[in-house]
């Protein structure tokens, strides 16, 4: 017969101080783990969910990013004639030649200058991204004008970025005409302007950095991608926009390694602490345990009961850790895209999987820390313990 859980709860309440301190210790470990997992979840959101599966990105063969691309403009008409490209609102193939460059802007709070991605696009660039991006203020930039629209998160971090302001980069001032939001994806770290204006600014008028093609369907997108890559004359590479962003998540790697190292080190420390508390609990209750045995509870029930108590302790810790970290949800920070050298803004995100992992992590600590003391409790001689 199992020992009721209320027995454990009453015991934990009795030694309130000990319970609190151990739970807090586990809580701190869970907190750190949650923090790191939130970072990773935010990073994943910024990269993996970026891009549209219907957009096909075309870059120079051998280039590995939009930034290192660049090819002659005469390839544009050939690309525009490929089958499977959707038509835009003017009845033309929906394609956008673009330049992606990096500009340096000073942080509003004076914490230094960082690289920011500037994207110059043809008018269709907006149309093929309309499902992903929402204009929240002002208007889009006008073709042929020194105007830019920028993301809400850029606006939050850099000065002179309100609608109507002028912002300085490249060869001079640009007028800010609008603010957009892109749901935490990579576009949320970009400034957008007209293709020719951006190309002029960086002396790249005679070439195009990369081209986006809007496919009519996922099948057409796949076909387009292969057709571009297989054409020996073009010397170009095609990939789905989603694939492009997926490839860039590798910079979460460093954070993941550090996170695993930190998480494991702290977890082992917490396991020791939990074991300590549980050993003490067993020692205090040595006579109680013997009494339970006399009453007919089996060894297995005793082991079970103490393991459950350790897990309860850990769950309490998990609750503390998660609750403490809740306010950090949405706290934004940034990282560098290691392909483009520019800053990518992302937010800490507490997702369901973060919570599940945190709870599992805590339970594992409780289990590991609780098994040895529980075993120790069950193994004791009844008579010797009663006599203590």
């Amino acid at each position, binding site marked *: 017969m199992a020992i009721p859980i209320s027995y454990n709860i009453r015991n934990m309440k009795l030694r309130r101080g000990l319970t609190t301190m151990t739970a807090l210790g586990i809580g701190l470990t869970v907190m750190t783990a949650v923090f790191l997992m939130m970072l990773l979840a935010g990073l994943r959101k910024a990269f993996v969910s970026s891009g549209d599966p219907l957009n096909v990105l075309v870059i120079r063969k051998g280039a590995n990013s939009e930034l290192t691309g660049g090819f002659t403009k005469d390839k544009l008409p050939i690309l525009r004639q490929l089958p499977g490209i959707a038509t835009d609102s003017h009845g033309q193939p929906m394609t956008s030649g673009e330049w992606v*460059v990096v500009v340096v802007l000073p942080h509003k709070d004076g914490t230094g200058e960082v690289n920011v991605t500037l994207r110059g696009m043809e008018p269709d660039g907006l149309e093929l991204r309309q499902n992903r991006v929402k204009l929240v203020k002002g208007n889009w930039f006008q073709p042929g004008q020194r105007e830019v629209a920028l993301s809400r998160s850029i606006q939050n971090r850099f000065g002179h970025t309100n609608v109507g302001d002028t912002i300085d980069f490249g060869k001079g001032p640009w007028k800010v005409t609008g603010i957009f939001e892109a749901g935490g994806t990579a576009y949320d770290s970009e400034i957008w302007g007209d293709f020719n204006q951006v190309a002029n600014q960086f002396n790249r008028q005679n070439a195009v950095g990369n081209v986006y093609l809007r496919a009519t369907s996922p099948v057409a997108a796949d076909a387009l991608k292969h057709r571009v890559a297989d054409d020996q004359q073009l010397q170009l590479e095609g990939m789905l926009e989603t694939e492009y962003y997926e490839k860039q998540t590798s910079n979460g790697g460093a954070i993941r390694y550090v996170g695993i190292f930190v998480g494991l080190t702290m977890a082992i*420390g917490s396991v*020791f*602490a939990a074991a300590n*508390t549980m050993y003490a609990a067993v020692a205090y209750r040595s006579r109680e345990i013997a009494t339970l045995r006399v009453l007919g509870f089996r060894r297995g029930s005793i082991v079970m009961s103490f393991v459950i108590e350790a897990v309860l302790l850990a769950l309490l810790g998990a609750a503390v850790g998660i609750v403490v970290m809740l306010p950090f949800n949405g706290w934004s*920070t940034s990282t560098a895209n290691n392909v*483009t*050298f520019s800053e990518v803004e992302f937010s800490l995100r507490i997702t369901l999987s973060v919570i599940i992992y945190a709870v599992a992590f805590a339970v594992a600590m409780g289990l590991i820390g609780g098994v040895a003391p529980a075993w120790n409790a069950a193994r004791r001689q009844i008579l010797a313990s009663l006599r203590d």
Partner: protein
Amino acid sequence: MTLAKFVRKNVYRNKLRFWLTVGSMAFSLALLSFLMSMWQAFYGNSLRSEQSAQRLIVRHKVSLTNLIPSSYRDRIRHVPGVVKVIPMNWFGGTYKDATQKNFFARFGTDPDEFFDVYPELEIPPDQLDAWKKDRAGAVADTELAKKYGWKIGDRIILQGDIYPIRLELTLRGIFTAKLPNNSLYFNEKYVEEGVPFAKGAAGFYGILVDSPQHVDQVSHDVDAMFANAPEPTRTETEKAFGLSFLAMLGNVKAFILIIASAAVFTILLVSGNTMAMSIRERTREVAVLKTMGFTRKVILGIFIGESATVGLLGGILGTLFALLLITAGTKVPNAGNLFVIAQHFWLFTAPTSIGVAILAGFLSSAIPAYAASKTGIVDGLRHIG
């Protein structure tokens, strides 16, 4: 029996508890020393060579991805205080494959002056000569050569991405750095010959200034010279240049502080927990001690001494353990460099960690020890554990 012996006996009384406490502290301290090393490596100066304080980096004002004209090199050379100027061209590209595992820094530069600007990189003179003579020659860091098993004379093939060219390099020299920089350098002319747009442009320049006192003046003069040129420049110290990359990783300072405080707080909790358990169990004993005439102060001292001893031992074992962990870490490919840095700073982080552990022991025992010293004799004797 002296008081010190009494304290020592009590520390080891419950061996299992002692080891669990020390073990728990050790892991948190290992983490703490690791974090302190990172902090030192990023924001301190001790890892930088003396020459580093004499170096400036000139890049395009707009961004690192904009190239600056080669003609700037001679103009910079004539700025008073400038000793040497070398171009540094980030090549990118892939070695073997595009995985992160095979990624390392590759720069095109000028073999004639490269080692003058970086005198702390040591290379045998005959190897340096060989590099200068071979336009398709390259030099690599010891660690990098070790990783790939490169020997002098080996072929190293790099497939370009920014520059559409396939470099077939021959390793002519292996240099040793105080801290491995995992970089490969080759002659920039090799790329210029094969790629028309690479001609006449450089990624950034490294400048050696005659003395650290002139660094600010030179950096100001260089930027002033190109302020109204079509390609304006931005000149900063090597340290500032490095930190601008770190700034891209996010608020690293805050991350380190958050995790470090969690680690310190954990040590406090663990140590406090142990002392609370231990003192609670000995309530009756304390009463007996008092009956025997020990004053409250002595009893307080005994407990605090006990806790500080656990802290000291935990600290020592923790830092030794940290060293073990860090040494093991240096063997991990890729993550290796972080651990090399941590190893470098171990002598600095060890005393600090031990100090933190003792202090934690001290602070955490104060409350339960004070409570125990205050308990009345009769209450104490009546106490049931």
